[in-house]
């Protein structure tokens, strides 16, 4: 029976969706439920990873140390995973995460910039961690260029290559093409995919990836996460079970955990809203979603205009500060037109 491993990111990507307000108690409960349901790893921390508590995104209510320690106490079988975004998180942050019990790290870089993560990938290996090279916004690059980046990641010592559709902008065949290209470039490394649901393809895309040979799938309980959310962990687990693929997880236990612990936290629509469609079509990093909706509500500048303008400016993950430029420029223009 073919095997696919599930990495649940409710407690990391989901953190974007709740303004980084997770408490150690919530982290403990959700980690315990995920562990008992049989996921491979539990991804925990600020949405932007370890050291990610900054004004640019929003500050964490609790420190990396508090959240990771809570998760470590709950996990018996599953690995404790962290994300590290070089340029924001540092090697000191990774060492701290490791001391708190993290055994896996995903070094997350924009899809063309893997060399800035070389130091961090090497440190992860030195610490004895399982290390994924996590390539974000992969809709912005070609399968061939991504394959070259994967080759570089392999040369730094990465154990696996993660392909992230950070804006939920890809179609199933886009994902498939990237999985195949990376597979050809680094046949000895397993491949994972991390998908967002902004175009309603949060299940179709990982399924296409699995068909193409991916061995790791990211999800979040209830489909929680940045944008209008990630692949739903319980949903993909159920679909893979039906497809006869062994994830090692009990999809119904995942569904129960989602209903019990995550559903009560959900404070905005997880549907594919019109704004999520605009974000996905414009190809904007999913963590912009709530920030743009909030800026739009406060300023009266249409969300669609903001997303499309951000798309024209080719912003990448982490450039939330550009939202304010777009809003101020729109308002200045509107004022000029009034006069």
């Amino acid at each position: 029976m073919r095997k696919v491993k599930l990495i649940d990111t409710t407690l990391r990507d989901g953190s974007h969706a709740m303004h980084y307000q997770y408490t150690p108690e919530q982290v403990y409960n959700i980690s315990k439920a995920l562990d008992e349901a049989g996921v491979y790893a539990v991804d925990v921390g600020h949405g932007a990873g370890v050291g990610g508590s900054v004004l640019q995104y929003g500050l964490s209510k609790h420190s990396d140390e508090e959240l990771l320690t809570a998760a470590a106490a709950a996990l018996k079988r599953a690995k404790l995973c962290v994300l590290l975004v070089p340029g924001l998180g540092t090697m000191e942050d990774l060492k701290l995460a490791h001391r708190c019990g993290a055994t896996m790290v995903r070094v997350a870089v924009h899809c063309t910039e893997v060399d800035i993560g070389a130091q961090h990938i090497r440190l992860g290996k030195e610490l004895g961690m399982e290390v994924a090279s996590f390539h974000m916004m992969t809709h912005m690059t070609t399968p061939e260029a991504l394959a070259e980046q994967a080759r570089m990641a392999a040369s730094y010592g990465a154990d696996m290559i993660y392909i992230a559709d950070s804006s939920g902008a890809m179609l199933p065949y886009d994902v498939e093409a990237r999985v195949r290209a990376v597979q050809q470039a680094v046949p000895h490394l397993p491949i994972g995919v991390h998908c967002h649901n902004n175009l309603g393809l949060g299940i179709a895309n990982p399924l296409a990836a699995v068909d193409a040979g991916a061995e790791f799938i990211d999800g979040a309980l209830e489909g929680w996460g940045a944008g209008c959310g990630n692949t739903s962990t319980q949903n993909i687990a159920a679909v893979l079970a039906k497809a006869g693929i062994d994830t090692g997880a009990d999809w119904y236990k995942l569904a129960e955990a989602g209903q019990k612990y995550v559903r009560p936290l959900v404070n905005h629509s997880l549907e594919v809203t019109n704004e999520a469609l605009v974000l996905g079509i414009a190809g904007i990093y999913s963590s912009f979603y709530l920030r743009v909706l909030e800026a739009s509500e406060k300023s009266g500048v249409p969300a669609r205009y903001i997303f499309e303008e951000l798309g024209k400016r080719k912003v990448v993950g982490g450039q939330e500060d550009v939202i304010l430029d777009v809003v101020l420029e729109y308002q200045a223009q509107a004022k000029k037109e009034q006069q």
Partner: protein
Amino acid sequence: MGNRIKVGIIGPGNIGTDLMYKVMRSRFLEMSVMIGIDPNSPGLKRAAGLGFQTSSDGIEYLVQHPDLAEIVFDATTAKAHLHVNAPTLARLGKIAIDLTPAAVGKIATPMVNMKDCLNEKNVNLITCGGQATTPIVYAISRAVPLEYAEVVTTVASDSAGPGTRANIDEYTRTTAEALRLLGGADRAKVMTIFNPAKPQMPMRNTIFGIPKTWDFRIEDVCASVREMVDRIREYVPGYQLTVPPVIDRGIITTTVTVEGQGDFLPKYAGNLDIETSSAVKMAEMFAEKLLRERGELA
């Protein structure tokens, strides 16, 4: 034209070559010698073509010909500066302006603390982000003390050299330290983003500040920052206040962008331009002082 101070450049790469063009425009500095270690270096050839002395003997050439320069820019590597160039320049009594991350000497930026560094023999340029943002944090702090400062810098991927890319943590740490030591914030954090978009975008820096007190007027913060921006524009013409300080989400927020002068480096590489422009400005401040002391300046 009055007397000028002779300068040398060690490291004939992109940065060294851009420095050379800027020195050539200076009214206080005289471009004298370009020093490298590779006889085939295009930078050495370019300098020779412009009529300057060149050598591929490394700093040993300056030991043999100490009269060639009083001020020396080091645009090599941290390792070379730390182990070879800094001690040699100190022995020769030269003023060293260090563009490497070695930070042997005092960290400095022209409009914040350079006046206090004019008796130093070795000054360090911090980082490009440090040159672009430390003065803004300093300008905000003069109007209202900051408990926390945060800088988000976005540069074109093509403008970030392999040294920065391979040592991003070091860059982050050095810049954050300057925001505390020179900027005056109690705590500081730095985030750096490389954007591969084509055409390449100029350097962009957003500065956030959490004030210690809400007893201040944002207009005063604005005036202080504008004054600083005007002074920086005198030596970095492409430095622009694109979002003047506002209170957004309860935080002081302001953005500056930097476009380069396109001397040798491409215009979008404002991050490199502010580094070389600041280095030349610092050299000019040293030169002005030396000339004044010698009575060679009116």
